[in-house]
């Protein structure tokens, strides 16, 4: 066998490479930015990852991505109401940021397109290793987004909601947030739209010393959209990050999460809900690096699978040799409601330090018959009783967030999904 043989390109690969040639002159940035884009498209030219690439084993992107829509600059997307009333909303409509950024004390918003043009965004554009197809796709095509800076010590009372709203075609956006020392914020990342789109979205956040952030990703793409997303975080000394991910839509979704503790006392919580229906594929893949001593993390992912939906959770925790006293716990629980649905869970712990506490667990269950009988014995009909139990299974994760406005907002999203798929 000839190891250097290039497999024949798929229509999707060809479309992406052609689109890059067509779009090149329209993409913001030159010099350093353009060099990054060139490198990135080379990665795509080597082929989209297949199941033979370990991190893509359960999501064979080359096989699953069978159509790539053209860019549609004329498509219209409209800003939507935030999930929490009174939030500061910043929207990316059909891949473009708004020239009018909000004014919020202690927070600066900058359009990413400007930072691509002046080259200052270039250092952040490197993909995450050689298998990073989403990073490469985004770096090649990214045209806009926002750069948000929350000054030291600023405590935001209301959430900042970053909306990425597609209207079909392709969109490639990036959100970069720095949270200053001791600052506190709730940031909502909305991912939705109404087109048969292909989108990549990369979010990056840096938490300085003692910062506390709750970041909510609310993904409700239509069942025609391919959504390839990344969330990358560095958590500094004594900083706390809670990442809540809710996937409730999309045809092909991959949400990657790369988190690194960079200062002692850093704490990370991942809480995930995957509501999977129809003939869809949703993959949440996390790589967490406990890179310094005395850092903690817990990950809880709850999945509800109906129809022919397929889901994946890969959770990899790397405890570096120097990272003594790490405490990390991971759980993935799936409620399988149909015979045709499936969910694959792959926990991985790589531990190079010897004084750590690490654990993981995974369960796949059906609705508990005893619970169902109990509710029905009180007069709740079977359909409603099942609905209550399924909602309870995921609502547990939401209620833990402990902020009434957010819990209510997320439960409303949950109710919306159940109304559509119950």
């Amino acid at each position, binding site marked *: 066998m000839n190891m250097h043989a290039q497999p024949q390109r798929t229509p999707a690969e060809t479309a992406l490479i052609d689109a890059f040639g067509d779009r090149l002159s329209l993409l913001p940035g030159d010099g350093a930015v353009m060099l990054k884009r060139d490198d990135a498209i080379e990665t795509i030219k080597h082929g989209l990852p297949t199941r033979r690439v370990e991190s893509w084993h359960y999501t064979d992107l080359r096989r699953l991505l069978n159509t790539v829509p053209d860019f549609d600059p004329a498509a219209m997307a409209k800003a939507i109401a935030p999930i929490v009333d009174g939030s500061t909303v910043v929207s990316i409509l059909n891949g473009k940021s708004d020239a009018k950024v909000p004014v919020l004390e202690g927070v600066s918003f900058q359009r990413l397109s400007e930072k691509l043009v002046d080259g200052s965004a270039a250092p952040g554009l490197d993909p995450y290793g050689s298998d990073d197809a989403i990073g490469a796709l985004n770096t090649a095509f990214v045209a806009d987004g926002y750069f948000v800076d929350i000054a030291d010590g600023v405590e935001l009372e209301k959430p900042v909601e970053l909306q990425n709203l597609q209207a079909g075609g392709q969109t490639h956006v990036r959100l970069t947030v720095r949270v200053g020392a001791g600052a506190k914020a709730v940031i909502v990342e909305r991912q939705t739209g109404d087109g048969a789109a292909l989108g990549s979205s990369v979010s990056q956040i840096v938490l300085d010393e003692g910062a506390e952030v709750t970041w909510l990703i609310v993904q409700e793409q239509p069942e025609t959209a391919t959504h390839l997303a990344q969330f990358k975080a560095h958590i500094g000394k004594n900083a706390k990050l809670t990442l809540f991910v809710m996937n409730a839509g999309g045809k092909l979704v991959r949400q990657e999460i790369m988190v690194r503790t960079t200062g002692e006392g850093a704490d990370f919580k991942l809480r995930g809900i995957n509501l999977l229906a129809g003939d869809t594929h949703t993959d949440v893949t996390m790589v967490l690096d406990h890179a310094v001593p005395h850092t903690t993390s817990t990950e809880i992912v709850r999945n509800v699978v109906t129809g022919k939906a397929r889901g994946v959770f890969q959770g990899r925790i790397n405890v570096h040799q120097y990272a003594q006293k790490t405490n990390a716990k991971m759980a993935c629980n799936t409620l399988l409601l149909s015979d045709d649905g499936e969910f694959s869970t792959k926990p991985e712990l790589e531990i190079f330090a010897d004084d750590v506490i690490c654990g993981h667990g995974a369960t796949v269950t059906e609705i508990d*018959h005893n619970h169902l009988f*109990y509710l029905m014995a*009180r007069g709740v*009909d079977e359909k409603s009783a099942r609905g209550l139990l399924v909602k*309870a299974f995921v609502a547990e994760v939401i209620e833990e967030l402990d902020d009434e406005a957010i819990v209510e907002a997320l439960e409303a999203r949950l109710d919306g999904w159940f109304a559509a798929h119950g």
Partner: protein
Amino acid sequence: MLEIRNLHARIVDDGTEIIRGLNLTVKAGEVAAIMGPNGSGKSTLSYILAGREDYEVTEGDILYNGQSILEMDPAERATSGIFLAFQYPMEIPGVATMEFLKVAMNEQRKARGEEPLKIPEFLKRVKEAAASLSMDMAMLKRPLNVGFSGGEKKRAEILQMKLLEPKLCVLDETDSGLDIDALKIVSDGVNALRAPDRAFLVITHYQRLLEHIVPDTVHVLYKGQVIKSGDKSLALDLEANGYAGVIGEAA
């Protein structure tokens, strides 16, 4: 109100026959006690009345107000007025107790063609019922039965019974796990619900409960059959002499 005729039932999973030709009639307004040694089929009978699908009726019938309930699912039985107070109430994480009470009450109202309760009226009823059972409202903010002590769970069952106002109340070993004070509170709760149009089936091991909830009739269940029926003196007799005598008589 309730007529059980030559009932035979088995466990679906392994086919074991538990109820073997049981006959029992309970009239409106009556409190009937079901007693019997372990394994006689007492709890199974309560589950079959409530419609648990782990059991299969192979022969006979259960008539409730003259109509067979065998084809009804648990929810239909509940909305028609049958209530089972569980021996071991289920803990259901994630379902808030108050939310559950509201859903259950309104589902039953809906089935009877009534309007859903307005929130203030709902809260008023729950508060009154909770107070009468010396239950703390804070407990009802927790997920259903989660972290409740054995006694709290039993009180929560009686609370549900009060709120749902059933016509046929089946109490499965409601006294187990209760201390004397809790037993008194729970019994008072049950007694307050006694009414001419309501019947109770009180399943218990011990005479103790029947000192508080005085039965009109007592039935001894053994190997899936009622082997002896009598009035409350039968319970005292069993307490004094055990089941052996009654079983010997029947054999």
